[in-house]
């Protein structure tokens, strides 16, 4: 298939979609790292006190960590940590540009959630499928906070744009 079959683009940070009772905003990640292994040691070393969040947990001020797996998490920070490699018992890889952050707020955000999230409330892992795409899903003030890998953001953005018109 060629380019004429895809009309959409990856949203720029700051891009917004407005619908009846719902606003969707795209933001860049300020800084993030993938950490694996001994997560307690990783947090203590890189961002002491950062809480570990699961599915739909409320995100506080940075730094905080979004749990992905038993032994993997995304540590979100105010700025890139600039750390790479294996430490004692854990590994860290820069992931500052891996995800785009999509915030969904407004009175009808629960309908968006109904249309994009399957079952599975209250899970220790924030990683799930959101509108069929891998994503990390948490709650932010006023709504949902969804992290999707940047190359797939265009597809999710298009889907949300059509969804708010269809709800």
């Amino acid at each position: 298939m060629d380019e004429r079959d895809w009309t959409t683009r990856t949203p720029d940070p700051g891009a917004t979609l407005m619908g009846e009772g719902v606003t969707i905003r795209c933001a860049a990640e300020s800084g993030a790292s993938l950490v694996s292994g001994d997560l307690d040691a990783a947090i203590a070393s890189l961002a002491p006190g950062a809480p570990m969040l699961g599915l739909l947990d409320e995100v506080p001020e940075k730094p905080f960590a979004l749990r992905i797996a038993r032994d993997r998490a995304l540590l979100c920070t105010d700025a890139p940590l600039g750390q790479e490699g294996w430490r004692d018992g854990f590994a860290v890889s820069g992931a500052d540009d891996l995800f785009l952050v999509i915030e969904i707020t407004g009175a009808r955000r629960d309908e968006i959630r109904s249309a994009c999230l399957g079952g599975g409330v209250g899970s220790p892992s924030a990683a799930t499928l959101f509108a069929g795409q891998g994503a990390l899903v948490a709650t932010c003030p006023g709504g949902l906070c969804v992290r999707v890998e940047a190359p797939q953001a265009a597809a999710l953005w298009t889907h949300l744009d059509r969804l708010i018109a269809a709800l």
Partner: protein
Amino acid sequence: MQRFSCPFCGLRDETEFHFAAEAGKHRPEPAPEVSDADWADYLFGNDAPRGPAREVWVHLTCGEFFVMTRDTVTREVLGSAALPGRSQ
């Protein structure tokens, strides 16, 4: 839309999972000591039980491989367990 249980993440939609293998198959090694028949049986021979079956599945969103016991007739999920040594 079936629901499976990842030992770490809990109950999730089936689209987050993928079948890996029948559980309980041990890889014959080392290669020079394995007959063609044994190797073929390891690769392709499956018990495919009718009723409760132990299977290795992977939860794609977190990457955890685990054992799920599932009834192949009623499709009921009878239990999920982490791989030995994995639960913390």
